[in-house]
């Protein structure tokens, strides 16, 4: 079992250019990060490309990890999620063909997204449940599907400003719940 301290230590050694530490970090975290890339991109070949780019970034940015105040797994997850979302958005902007679209997983809220696997996840899941379901769904869509305000407005058939206002209000409620 690799602890957050272990991961942190490995990242610090990767920052010094230690290849053995990079291999160990990859062994400890690649399944988690590949799962995220796969979930966001819904396409194995593209998720593999994304994973490769993510680890190249990890190697190149490890020396800047210490200063951002993230826990090690939050840093790795955020980097992976953001990279996968960037790719997903680029694909959308190009206009995905139907074949590709068919590979995007069903976006309905799945049980996996609500599963409780840690205290933090439990707390977040509990606070998300306090939001009206469609707003929790919109937050989740923004995070895992990379949907923009415009896409959410189209999806919920609401004016952009209405969507923005209710989502911002929901985020504030979520924040209050999380800080209690």
């Amino acid at each position: 079992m690799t602890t957050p301290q272990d991961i942190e230590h490995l990242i610090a050694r990767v920052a010094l250019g230690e290849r053995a530490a990079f291999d160990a970090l990859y062994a400890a975290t690649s399944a988690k990060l590949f799962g995220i890339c796969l979930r966001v991109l819904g396409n194995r070949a593209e998720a593999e490309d994304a994973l490769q780019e993510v680890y190249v970034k990890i190697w190149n940015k490890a020396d800047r990890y210490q200063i951002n105040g993230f826990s090690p797994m939050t840093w790795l997850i955020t980097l992976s999620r953001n990279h996968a979302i960037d790719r997903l958005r680029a694909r959308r902007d190009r206009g995905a063909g139907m074949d590709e679209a068919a590979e995007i997983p069903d976006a309905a809220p799945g049980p996996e997204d609500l599963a409780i696997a840690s205290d933090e996840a439990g707390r977040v899941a509990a606070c998300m449940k306090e939001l009206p379901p469609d707003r929790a769904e919109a937050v989740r869509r923004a995070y895992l599907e990379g949907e923009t305000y415009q896409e959410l407005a189209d999806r919920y058939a609401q004016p952009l400003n209405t969507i923005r206002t209710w989502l911002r209000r929901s985020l504030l409620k979520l924040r209050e719940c999380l800080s209690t």
Partner: protein
Amino acid sequence: MTQPFDMEEGRILAAEYALGLLDDAQARAFEEAMSTNPDLRDEYADWATAFSAVTDGIAPVVPPVSAKTAIDTVLFGKPRSLWQRIGVMPALLGAAAAALLLFAVVNLGLLAPAPGPTYTADIAAEDHSLVVTASFDDTSRTLRINRAAGAARDGRVLELWLIAGDNAPVSLGVLPDAATGDIIVPADLVAALDGGVLAISDEPLGGSPTGAPTGDVLAVGPITAL
């Protein structure tokens, strides 16, 4: 978005930033605000932590082995890319000619067969700005290095690599400052000398920090059995 905002607005912006809901200009403005405001940075870190917990329910999937190989190739290079980087064919042809000449010399009895080096390599840059010969003595597992031309740049060193087949380069150590010197080859690498290639790269003091060549590959030469 350049005007200052209160903390409540800052909290929402941090969440929108973490979700990627801000447009480019808004995101840049928020990053700029974060760079001078530790509270905003903490706020963003809190949101990133909260949202990353959403991924706890996503099942881990072991990536294929080829993914790691591809990453290593991008970051550390592979023998194939080394060869491409220095255009190895001229060196190989030159070495083949040298080997042929050596073969002729030995077989014509011009050189008495005697115990001595069992392998040799001419490691030369294409423009001959760096020329190093290496001869391996089996009994002492020593590579006798003779640097005939060229030297490390100021504040840098030359590092010697052994490349066996498609394997990643293995460091044999940093070349001595003096023009001649010995490098002991680890016992488990001796077998890899046969049919292998020696290469020299430009590295920071103390040698490559990664275990793979990080600087330019300056010279290369195939190992010839005697």
